[in-house]
């Protein structure tokens, strides 16, 4: 399989959990850490270095709402999981274009291609996003996010 690199995904690590998996991402601000979190989840389902954003790539705008930061993060990931599960689109680029911290809403544009098993290396299915050990840490020059997903 051809290697197209991970693209935008760069600040991430997978951490241990007996039955499930924990994602850790970071960025210069929360917005970047959130974008990385969407991408690490996509990378866990389909290895992003096997994905090329060619002319077939499409863009999708996603709007989500929460009642606090945790539920907003949950909603963002749940929405991308939903799009993958129903439309089979794997996203390799994500940009948060609006982030309202008072009303807890996010609007993001994702760029991706439809899964093609003859070209893409598949990973593991994600059953659900969880609040287990969820952590959002915001600091002046670096923000971190931890999420456990059920697999």
């Amino acid at each position, binding site marked *: 399989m051809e290697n197209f690199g991970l693209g935008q995904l760069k600040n991430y690590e*997978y951490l241990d959990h*007996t039955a499930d*998996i924990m994602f850790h991402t970071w960025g210069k601000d929360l917005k970047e850490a959130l974008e990385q979190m969407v991408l690490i989840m996509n990378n866990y389902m*389909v290895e992003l270095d096997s994905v090329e954003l060619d002319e077939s790539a499409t863009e999708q705008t996603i709007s989500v709402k929460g009642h606090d930061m945790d539920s907003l993060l949950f909603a963002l990931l749940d929405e991308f999981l939903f799009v993958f*599960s129903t439309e089979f689109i794997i996203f390799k680029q994500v940009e948060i274009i609006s982030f309202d911290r008072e009303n807890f809403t996010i609007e993001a544009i994702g760029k991706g291609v439809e899964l093609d098993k003859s070209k893409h290396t598949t*990973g593991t*299915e994600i059953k659900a*996003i969880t609040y287990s050990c969820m952590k959002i840490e915001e600091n002046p020059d670096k923000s971190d996010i931890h999420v456990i997903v059920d697999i």
Partner: protein
Amino acid sequence: MSEKSVVREFEDELSFIEKIDSVRYRVKKGFVPNMKVDGMIYVNDSIKDYLYEELEQFSKRGVSGFLPAVKQIANVASLPGIVGHSLGMPDIHSGYGFSIGNVAAFDTEDPLSIVSPGGVGFDINCGVRLLRTNLTEKDIEPIKEQLCQSLFDHVPVGVGSKGVIPMNIKTLNQALEMGVDWSLGEGYAWVEDKEHCEEYGRMLNADPTKVSERAKKRGLPQLGTLGAGNHYLEVQVVDEIYDKAAANKMGIDRQGQICIMIHSGSRGLGHQVATDSLTLMEKAMARDHIHLNDKQLACSRINSQEGQDYLSGMAAAANFAWVNRQSMTFLTRQAFAKAFNSTPDDLDMHVIYDVSHNIAKFEEHNVNGRPKKLLVHRKGATRAFAPHHPLIPVDYQFTGQPVLIGGTMGTCSYVLTGTELGMNETFGSTCHGAGRSCSRNKSRNNLSYTDVLDSLQAKGISIRVASPKLVMEEAPESYKDVVQVIETCHKAGISKKSVKLRPIAVIKG
């Protein structure tokens, strides 16, 4: 994270755990706050260390990170309306809220009693089905690789796979309501199949209107797909028969006989039903200022609107899972019929049984000598009803309900039967599989792809897997020894060994 977790020195923690006999450990009240009953965990000497290690790490680490399974068993013992014990099966490990391998029953006569989606798990009615054939290992051997490939081609597996059974929103609603009865009507099931499913493949309290559009959309393309992770389809050989009479009733009469095991659940539909209700209940608990030992134990009173809606939606998702396993049964029968140029009927491809190991059900059990209607949660635990129980099919009235325990890739699987002792001690429940002992990350880092495949090949096992990294994650080294799990249940008497099955071909996500 847990709000009221007590962290003590490891030695102090141990004073709350009492060894009763070689396979039973009592977790005494006081181990966590508000315990209404004791916990009871079934482990033997060779697997108890996993639990102790987890607890020891927790004592050192403090309340950050995940809760060890023993703490989770105790937290469940603090939930309103629980009766008997909060039970831990030998394959127990830490999960979301409830540990995987936990059985907990709640008294429906107590108005405070609860139902919790975390006590069922994200994969509602994840379960195991076993088919028999009249073939032997010798018949399979010459065409094993082709058969393995053909099964892989027939049954959609892995991330992003789509089902081949035509479905639209109307037929989906029918399937959610009717379970295997829908499959029967559509020609995907034999009449006898239904007889050999837990609940006869249909939960009557299912209500498709309690399943969100979001969940239905996730389920629509996935009917008749195996999934990924620990799900599999295996061609297995009867390796040993422990209980000849019981095996005969199941149509297993000789070593070398070929069976097929399917391990799968309710796919994205069930995952979304669980997610939806957990989110709803967490919000409702915050609203009503209900504080539990652990936020992940989100629950509602059985008789509340949220509780009733969850039970109806869960039942619909359970029906979806039965239709899913039935659809793959249909595809498997087709693959075998083609491979042997015969018919599924002539190959005697009957369903031996179909069990659910992630479910909550209303059942009648004796509590302190009095029959009571209970809501029994089984999460990573299997129902194991004793002989003569009215809810098991006529074929198994004298043997007890067959209990299907899937091993891990490359290890043996087992058929057990339910016992009277299990009825009295564990609400007629036993283990469900091997249970992870090692994180997926560690498995991926410590094991090599070729080593795992070589070792499978050395055992004569053909394998087709959609995702390469799953090979390491699901390697037998990542799991507790299934033999010890089974031995513990047998020794404790909560289920009885009947047949051992050895895999010869594995299809995985």
